[in-house]
């Protein structure tokens, strides 16, 4: 079966080796955003391996990852699910006009005590 260019890009951009996954589910068991996500870290790994990238690209799950790296830290096979999640997120927001967070929406989201760190972090994740 031919590998899609999307899968190639995810593998290249994440640097993760999805073939090492043994589907133990430890990553998802540790994920603090599990309840928020439609697809969980081990499914990101699985769907990339099976070349079903569109499913992930179109899922709100990509915006629910906290970037905490727990899934990768606790993965016994050093697969790095968080790298996969981020590579899919990056692919989604890099598409033209697909920024998930827009500057014009920011004023409605900030309060007096909102730290700059929160704004720059969200921009870095959700916007190209």
């Amino acid at each position: 079966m031919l590998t899609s260019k999307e899968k190639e890009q995810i593998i290249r951009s994440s640097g993760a080796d999805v073939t090492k996954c043994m589907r133990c589910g430890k990553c998802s068991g540790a994920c603090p955003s599990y309840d928020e996500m439609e697809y969980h870290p081990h499914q990101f790994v699985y769907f990339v391996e099976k070349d079903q990238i569109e499913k992930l690209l179109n899922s709100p799950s990509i915006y629910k990852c906290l970037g905490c790296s727990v899934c990768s830290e606790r993965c016994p096979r050093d697969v790095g699910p968080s790298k996969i999640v981020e590579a899919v997120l990056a692919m989604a927001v890099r598409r033209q006009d697909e920024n998930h967070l827009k500057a014009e929406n920011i004023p409605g989201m900030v309060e007096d005590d909102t730290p700059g760190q929160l704004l720059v972090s969200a921009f870095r994740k959700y916007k190209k």
Partner: protein
Amino acid sequence: MTFSYYPGCTLKTKAKELDAYARRSAEALGITLAELPDWQCCGGVYNNTKDEIATKLSSVRALISAKEQGNKLVTLCSACHNVIKRTKNEIETNDDMAFRVSNYMQCDARKDSDTEVVHFFELLRDTVGFDELKKKVVNPLTGRKIAAYYGCLLLRPGKVLQFDNPENPKIMEDFIRALGATPVIYPMRNECCGGYIAIESSEAARKNSAAIYESAEGFGADCMITACPLCRYNLIKAESTVPVVYFTELLAEALGVK
């Protein structure tokens, strides 16, 4: 002893206390923190993707600038520390990154940015030493039960950060002991506060943060310490029943320079 110092944007605005108490404490400990000239924001989070280079260049500039001064680079905010240290590691371990950064910056990235990055906690542990710190304490925080909140960014990825054991760290507890207080060890101390998700899903962030302070409270903490402005913000927004302060505030108090 002089170190270059990278404060980061939030320490200049919403987290001024984190910065101010660190400077005063460093002075009391005989350490000079020389703020880098013209530092730029680290961007708050490290982008895991290997083909994302431009947004990591502010960290490269900080590394190069400290190296030019002949200093190690001290960080204070957990996020800045994570981003700068991971950027340095990426240059060291990824040929493509080293090549592109060298081209862009017109430098030899591996050589010019191989600056040692030291978090303020590591400075206290490895340069000052917790035994020495203990001797310098004039107001021991005797009887206070303090919960160290590590969060994510100081610990993970463990292989790159090499801050402490990512699953069972002790550096912050050793720090608390050096100040004369009693550390409270609780299960959620290295879990995530919700991070930047708070921008569009404050409910989700609050759920994460609530689990953390409830855990600390359940184990008897009367105060929590952090090195991260976003952790502190998320905990406070989740209406933490345990007060959350920057670790440098306790340090300054114990050293009598608050």
